[in-house]
């Protein structure tokens, strides 16, 4: 909300400059988002009086004026406007003056006649929209005076962010009240209600009935007769413009002006359009409708509070008025409403109708039942003053059950215990009472206060302590080093391991991605995923179709990442992501399941290009190697079997198991998936269930004695049928070698001319070693033969 400094000064004396005031308010909790000075761009503009108007000798649409600006001879000024007459006072920019947008006024010739300045319109001064002609000032404006000051344009506007708990800050008076407490300056009440003596009594003109007192605890109204609806005066319009509101007519402008000043929303009805000229506050009935001021036809439900006349709803209470009862040019008699509505009720109506108005936002935060009365008086006085209305005698005030004001006890020691301060009791009490709280009882240890009518946010001791802290100034509260005693419970035992793993993967040369948790059925299917991956947690209010569900796999995101970067010229990628996936809970009442996964993506070359080596493309063994490295780093031993998977190319896909449970898969991405992502190069992916991996935490490694006796090495090359799985051969060799076989490394595989067709050659390096002795040739020979025998038996392998 935007607040005028001059307006604030009507209620409280402020000795601070704009910047200091902004800081002061910010430190009170009224965050200043910006400071705006409209007169900043206006220079050297005086109140001028037109002394003559003559036709321009060379132009039909221009006139030559003489304007007195109180400096000797009147200035000769060429002007294109036609709304002025001799004797009018107008804002006159002198030579050397300046208008908004850095427009400098210089002496110049117009169609052969010299012009020594410029007379200005509202728009040229940046104060309003009216560009129909010159801005005509009041007849009593002093000639030669500074027009900026005269027009109130030397004002400063503060853009304030009002927190939702402080509805009372949504008006000039509320902020003035806060300043009065914090600056120790008294709050002025400069305005009185209208004088109504001798006017007809309101009771004979209209009446109010509250049928829903829980929704509307208080409803006040006044009646204004014979109002002249016309534009509001400039001072009022410029304040509305400054606050960002549009001027409509004097009646509507008055309600808006009072809204800005008091923070309390008012509504004016055309009294003569109300059936039986009376008002009923009630809940809407099934099937009732209302065309609101914005021209929309609203269907009302039974929980919506409405203002009705004897027949039908005329306004959605606290939200928006209706079109048929709107105040217009022909309105004469006005029914002016000022009510206190239940915040919850207004919030419900506004939500149900999808409307958020100045009024509804204020009522939702909680209005002030006392300010309702004050605002009504202020508006009525202005209607009399600016619209010439006759204000009916008396106020219609329905207030069946006064709103209770909370009473709260404050213990002085609690304040200091919570804040870490030593604020004396007298100071604490003074802070609280300066904010309008009533002290009910004071002892040496505590005090009891009643909150003012505008403070709905205060209901307990902590609230009072915050008030003390605010006025004491947060900056003055001392700074202490926290003495945290470490919590015993480990809340996220996996966090440290995941972090270590992330570091390990980065060390392996992988770069970390982070994708949003959203996905969609389409995106997931596009990645070739099916089965469980298509069981989504869906959003009721997604931002877009592509973000309609929570992701069930990290793969779609990574394929998007590959497509994006390949598209931007980066064809070699080594990436990973660690993050959550989400699945519906088996039990409807539980929260969805969320588990951590890790995904690897490889595409392009194995290593960066280097002058010493030819680039080699990555293949399935690179992605498998990463999977192996991951497990090795966790000291886990997985098994890998060939598998079929809809996302991967057949024959290029492995399933990873840990203790017979599938924990993931890897492979070369299937051609149709690549095509769907517009990728034209092979991509390898692995996705693993990280939670399942981390569930196994192997015990700390136990030291194995370093062998004192030398190993002996033997190479074994066998011919085996070409489809023999190499892993099985190694495994069989390990089993057959017995205790003295320390390690088996497969170091060569050969298929081709030098081996018979249908066969391949497998070369194994066998390492024999015993803990307690040097092995004899006889011992190793024996083991070697055993291995050979086993390979022959299992696979038909022959020594090569």
């Amino acid at each position, binding site marked *: 909300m935007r607040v005028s400094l001059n307006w604030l000064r009507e209620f409280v004396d402020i000795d601070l400059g704009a910047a200091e005031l902004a800081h002061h308010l*910010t430190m009170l909790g009224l965050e200043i988002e910006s400071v705006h000075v409209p007169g900043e761009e206006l220079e050297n503009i005086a109140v001028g009086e037109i002394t003559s108007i003559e036709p321009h000798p060379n132009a039909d649409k221009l006139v030559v004026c003489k304007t007195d600006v109180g400096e000797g001879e009147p200035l000769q000024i060429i002007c294109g406007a036609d709304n002025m007459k001799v004797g009018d006072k107008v804002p006159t920019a002198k030579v050397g003056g300046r208008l908004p947008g850095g427009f400098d006024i210089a002496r110049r010739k117009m169609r052969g006649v010299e012009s020594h300045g410029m007379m200005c319109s509202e728009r040229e001064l940046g104060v309003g929209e009216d560009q129909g002609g010159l801005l005509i000032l009041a007849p009593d404006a002093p000639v030669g005076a500074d027009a900026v000051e005269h027009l109130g344009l030397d004002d400063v506007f503060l853009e304030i962010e009002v927190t939702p708990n402080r509805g009372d800050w949504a008006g000039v008076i509320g902020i003035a009240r806060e300043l009065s407490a914090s600056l120790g300056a008294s709050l002025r009440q400069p305005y009185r209600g209208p004088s109504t003596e001798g006017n007809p009594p309101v009771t004979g003109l209209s009446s109010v009935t509250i049928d829903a007192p829980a929704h509307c605890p208080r409803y006040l109204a006044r009646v204004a007769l014979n109002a002249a609806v016309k534009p509001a005066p400039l001072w009022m319009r410029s304040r509305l413009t400054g606050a960002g509101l549009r001027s409509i007519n004097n009646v509507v402008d008055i309600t808006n002006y009072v809204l800005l000043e008091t923070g309390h929303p008012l509504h004016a009805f055309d009294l003569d359009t109300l059936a039986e000229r009376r008002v009923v506050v009630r809940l809407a009935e099934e099937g009732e409708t209302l065309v609101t001021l914005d021209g929309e036809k609203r269907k009302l439900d039974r929980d919506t509070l409405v203002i009705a006349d004897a027949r039908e709803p005329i306004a959605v209470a606290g939200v928006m008025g209706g079109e048929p009862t709107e105040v217009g040019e022909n309105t004469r008699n006005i029914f002016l409403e000022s009510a206190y509505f239940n915040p919850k009720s207004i919030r419900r109506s506004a939500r149900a109708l999808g409307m958020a108005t100045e009024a509804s936002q204020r009522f939702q935060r909680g209005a002030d039942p006392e300010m309702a009365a004050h605002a009504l008086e202020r508006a009525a006085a202005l209607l009399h003053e600016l619209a010439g209305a006759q204000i009916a005698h008396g106020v219609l005030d329905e207030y069946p059950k006064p709103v209770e004001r909370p009473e709260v006890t404050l213990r002085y020691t609690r304040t200091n215990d919570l804040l870490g301060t030593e604020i004396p009791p007298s100071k604490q009490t003074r802070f609280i009472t300066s904010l309008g709280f009533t002290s009910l009882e004071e002892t040496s240890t505590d005090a009891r206060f009643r909150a003012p009518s505008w403070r709905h946010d205060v209901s307990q001791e*902590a609230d009072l302590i*915050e008030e003390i802290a605010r006025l004491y100034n947060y900056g003055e*509260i*001392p700074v202490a080093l926290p003495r945290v005693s470490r919590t015993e419970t480990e809340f996220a035992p996996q*966090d440290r391991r995941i972090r270590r793993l992330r570091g390990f993967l980065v060390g392996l040369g*992988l*770069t*970390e991605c982070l994708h949003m948790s959203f996905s969609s059925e389409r995106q997931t299917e596009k990645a070739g995923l099916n089965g469980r991956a298509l069981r989504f947690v869906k959003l009721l209010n997604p931002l877009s179709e592509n973000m309609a569900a929570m992701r069930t796999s990290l793969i779609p995101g990574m394929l998007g990442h590959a497509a994006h*970067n390949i598209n931007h010229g980066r064809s070699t990628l080594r990436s990973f992501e660690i993050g959550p996936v989400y699945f519906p809970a088996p039990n409807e009442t539980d929260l969805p399941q969320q588990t951590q996964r890790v995904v690897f993506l490889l595409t392009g070359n194995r290593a960066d290009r280097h002058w010493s080596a030819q680039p080699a493309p990555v293949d399935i063994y690179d992605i498998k190697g990463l999977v192996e490295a991951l497990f090795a780093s966790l000291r886990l031993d997985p098994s890998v079997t060939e598998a079929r998977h809809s996302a991967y190319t057949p024959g290029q896909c492995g399933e990873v198991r840990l203790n017979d449970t599938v924990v993931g898969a890897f492979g070369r991405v299937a051609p149709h998936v690549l095509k769907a992502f517009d990728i034209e190069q092979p991509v390898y992916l692995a996705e693993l269930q990280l939670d399942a991996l981390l569930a196994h935490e192997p015990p700390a490694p136990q030291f194995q004695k370093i062998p004192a006796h030398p190993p002996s090495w033997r190479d074994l090359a066998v011919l085996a049928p070409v489809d023999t799985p190499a892993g099985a051969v190694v495994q069989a060799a390990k089993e057959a070698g017995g205790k003295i076989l320390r390690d088996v490394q497969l170091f060569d595989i050969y298929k081709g001319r030098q081996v018979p067709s249908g066969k391949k050659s497998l070369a194994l390096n066998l390492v024999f070693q015993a803990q307690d002795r040097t092995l004899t040739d006889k011992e190793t020979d024996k083991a070697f033969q055993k291995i050979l025998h086993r390979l022959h038996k299992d696979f038909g392998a022959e020594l090569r």
Partner: protein
Amino acid sequence: MRDQLEAVRGEALRAVADAADLQSLETARVHYLGRKGVLTNILRNVSEAPEEERPVLGKTANEIKKAVVSAIEERKQALEAKVLEDQAEQDRADLTLPGRRPSFGHKHPISQVIEEITDIFAGLGFRVATGPDIETEYYNFDSLNTPADHPARDLHDTFFVKPGVVLRTHTSPVQMRVMEQTAPPVAVIVPGRTFRVDADASHSPMFHQVEGLWVDKGVTFAELKGALMLFSHAFFGKDTEVRFRPHYFPFTEPSAEMDISCTVCKGQGCRVCKHLGWLEILGCGMVHPEVFKYANYDSETYTGFAFGMGVDRMAMLKHSIDSIHHLYENDVRFLEQF
């Protein structure tokens, strides 16, 4: 014989000096000192010389042999050094060529910032805690003193999975989960993903927060200030100025927002800080007694503070990243900068 000896001395020393490489040196050695070498023969023949000449001849011959042996040794060392030198010249590396650098990856800046923040608070004794991204309204709102009709709870800010179940809009629900799980004292730091229905130039529908909570006997607002100032100095640098100003959160009372002096203009005013010189960094406050009620903590015995900060914003400030959207695009030209 004497003359012969002198002649051999000159000849042998010359041959050694002239040897251009180790091989010709060896040839010379064999020629003079070998089993059938010239000097060896002479020495062998000394016994055949007249008796009176023998001692002198023998002495001279031995001297000559010694001289030749040491000349050969000297020459050999010189030649060997030359060989090494030649080899080195041949093997000289071009150190202007790039080395064979093992490739290394990059942690996402969000991960880096989360790790840095949690490390700083771990140093103060806070433990990491986590909670689910998909939360109940109870944990996300109600138990944090934000009932259904509360103005702070705005429908279009929150993603709904179904009535009563939302994508958490902040990491604060973990406060309640942690307090339910353990009796005080408790000090946790909670990083995580958070979600709001908000997508424009400066908002992403998913972002990250880090939440902190410390509850114990006698925790004060002064300590809240101390902890967060310590953090700001550790994260943004020692010269960073910090200020606390009142704010409103339903789950803390008193509540505050913390600003730091603008990291770009050092408080002078610039576009990043909207010419105010301060940047809003986090929200914080003393845990609201109503929240303790939900957690079954006795708010008379225990007090505590809580805070929450936007990780994305911290990362953007730290690394001068100009748009939040870079963080989720996963463009390697971006990721490799960190």
